[in-house]
């Protein structure tokens, strides 16, 4: 484990973890596909996997270095989650409730932080996030759970449901109303150690039978006049909603790593099938339709990788903008990957529907497990809503600070170390315009002036510059619509606003791909650096998400993409920008 704890780069960390976990196709390995099938079929909590992860000290990745852990950056933590999720998304989600600890790293006292670090790393403690209520769903402010002040603390009454790890976990972050007349300032957040509560004053609801993540403990918790100590309050009384919204920014972006891992496995298992199965005297991969689906899926994964990694780095570089980046990542990545997996199912034919046979029936399990990501921690609708409220304000802030260029390299250049994270700098809404969108012109100018440094073909650079201009035009069209619009508020937004928010996320995704290539293209001579994937990726976003058809570009790029996809598969490397080596034993 020392090797992992001291890993210098993100790729080193990924490869060290991969090497430790081995090939998931080997049933002897922890979190293997065979194990994943077992917990899914038996709907048993993944106890052995979780124990192995704690015993291997992986909880350290969720604890900041100053409290004895090894957390340094969200992009590293995202890699840990992706590596786990690629094996078993259910175990990854179950273990990764540890990311709720960022509520305490953000709003807790030093004593609370030290206690939590010890609880997670030495006592192998786990936690749940008890926000949702049966009657109120995502409407946190409508909480019926009440925390009433007492002489020596609070007394909590209410029900939280459905909650992941409400039963099998010792710690509970509970959002409760402390002042019913204070509106958004009436909510407070508590970090409750269940072992210190009166067992007669709280109880759990039974495990809920679910479509995917069938081994997970998705249940609920009920408090009945349950006394809790004053020290369990996180932040001040009335700070709950503010802290909850900040915490969501972090966890929403990290959720995308679960999708990336699931997407990698869905594509890998489908590709294994397509490379071996013969139909009409041809291998499936050589059938034009299947080849198109596979290369599209590869593009989707590269696009989502660029979006996620930039989003995770944004917390360190532009926390003032994280409310945007987090919502964009949480909307775009899970929905794109869920659709990608569904698209792949046609390549597998009947085997997509089988809970056994090809590679332990992994595909259908991934399809079901990954479907939860766009739902939890703020659903697609919640994230799009959070974005659309900011459109007018963002369009008006365009160009208010023209120094995006200075920050772009730090957000997108993966070899640049990010500044230490400071949770208190996360803004509830963006106080700056979106650097990814505002910075397209700067990055294109940077590319023009440094084009000699690139390993890409000059004609490819011209194509990229031309597509970059198209992207700038689309961004201008979006901003133009909102700069003179009316102030938007409330939850009754039009369907047209939701479509505008979806397009906004697609523009951000395209910009993220462009910046990622421009700021990393000189790092090596890889497939990524040659840049031939970039215009097809931008074309795929325009085609699928903006309704601007790009058949010629996409069709022409297919042979090159398939060649690289086959190479990554043969060499056992991740379908990602870094193409990290995967566990092989």
């Amino acid at each position, binding site marked *: 484990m020392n090797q992992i704890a001291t890993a210098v780069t993100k790729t080193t960390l990924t490869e060290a973890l991969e090497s430790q976990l081995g090939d998931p196709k080997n049933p002897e390995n922890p979190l293997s596909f065979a194990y994943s099938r077992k917990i899914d079929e038996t709907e048993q909590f993944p106890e052995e996997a979780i124990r192995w992860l704690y015993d291997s000290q992986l909880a350290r990745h969720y604890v900041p270095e100053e409290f004895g852990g090894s957390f340094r950056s969200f992009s590293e933590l995202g890699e840990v989650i992706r590596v786990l999720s690629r094996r078993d998304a259910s175990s990854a989600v179950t273990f990764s409730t540890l990311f709720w600890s960022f509520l305490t790293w953000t709003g807790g006292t030093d004593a609370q932080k030290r206690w939590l670090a010890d609880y997670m790393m030495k006592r192998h403690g786990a936690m749940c996030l008890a926000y949702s209520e049966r009657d109120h769903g995502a409407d946190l402010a409508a909480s019926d759970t009440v925390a009433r002040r007492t002489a020596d603390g609070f007394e909590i009454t209410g029900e939280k449901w459905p909650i992941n790890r409400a039963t099998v976990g010792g710690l509970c972050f509970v959002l409760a109303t402390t002042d019913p007349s204070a509106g*958004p300032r009436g909510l407070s957040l508590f970090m409750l150690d269940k072992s210190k509560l009166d067992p007669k004053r709280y109880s759990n609801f039974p495990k809920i039978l679910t479509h995917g993540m069938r081994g997970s403990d998705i249940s609920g918790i009920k408090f009945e006049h349950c006394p809790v100590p004053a020290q369990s309050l996180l932040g001040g009384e009335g700070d709950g909603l*503010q802290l909850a919204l900040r915490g969501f920014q972090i966890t929403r972006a990290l959720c995308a790593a679960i999708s990336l891992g699931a997407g990698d496995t869905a594509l890998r298992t489908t590709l294994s099938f397509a490379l071996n199965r013969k139909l009409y005297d041809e291998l499936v991969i050589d059938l034009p339709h299947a080849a198109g689906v596979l290369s599209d899926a590869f593009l989707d994964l590269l696009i989502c990788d660029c979006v996620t990694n930039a989003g995770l780095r944004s917390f360190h570089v532009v926390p003032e903008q994280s409310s945007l980046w987090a919502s964009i990542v949480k909307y775009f990545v899970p929905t794109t990957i869920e659709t990608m997996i569904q698209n792949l199912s046609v390549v597998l034919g009947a085997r997509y529907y089988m809970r056994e046979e090809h590679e332990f029936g992994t595909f259908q399990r991934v399809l079901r497990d990954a479907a939860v990501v766009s739902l939890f921690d703020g659903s697609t609708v919640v994230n799009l809503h*959070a974005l659309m*409220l*900011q459109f007018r304000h963002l369009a008006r802030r365009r160009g208010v600070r023209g120094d995006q260029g200075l920050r772009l390299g730090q957000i997108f250049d993966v070899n640049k170390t990010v500044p230490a994270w400071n949770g208190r700098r996360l803004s509830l809404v963006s106080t700056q315009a979106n650097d990814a969108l505002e910075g397209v012109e700067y990055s294109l100018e940077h590319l023009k002036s440094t084009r000699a440094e690139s390993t890409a073909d000059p004609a490819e650079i011209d194509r990229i510059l031309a597509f970059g201009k198209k992207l700038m035009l689309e961004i201008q069209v979006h901003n133009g619509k909102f700069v003179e619009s009316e102030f938007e508020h409330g939850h009754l937004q039009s369907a047209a606003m939701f479509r505008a928010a979806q397009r906004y996320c697609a523009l951000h995704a395209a910009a993220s791909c462009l910046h990622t290539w421009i700021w990393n293209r000189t790092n090596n001579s890889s497939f990524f650096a040659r840049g031939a994937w970039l215009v097809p990726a931008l074309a795929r976003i325009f085609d699928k998400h903006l309704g601007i058809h790009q058949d010629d570009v996409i069709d022409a790029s297919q042979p090159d993409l398939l060649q690289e996809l086959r190479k990554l598969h043969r060499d056992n490397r991740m379908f990602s920008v870094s193409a990290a080596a995967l566990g092989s034993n």
Partner: protein
Amino acid sequence: MSKAKDLNEMKDWLIKRISTSLKVKNGMDPDAPFSKYGLQSIDAVILAMEIEEEVGVELPPTLLWEYNTVNECASYLVKIGSDIAA
């Protein structure tokens, strides 16, 4: 805002400003919480930022959470204005 306003001027200004943004048709009750007029949490932070630009004084982003009626908010803004005038 060109000069510090007194409490009544501030209340009138806020009612006009907020009712325009929220499209309130039948007048605002100065003692009713903003949520009564459809203002939630994130949109309240954005409106506070817009108000900040107009009054030219730095305001907490959660202004409309902390002072969640016209009367409370006007009193706070007058107090801040007075502090600056002094």
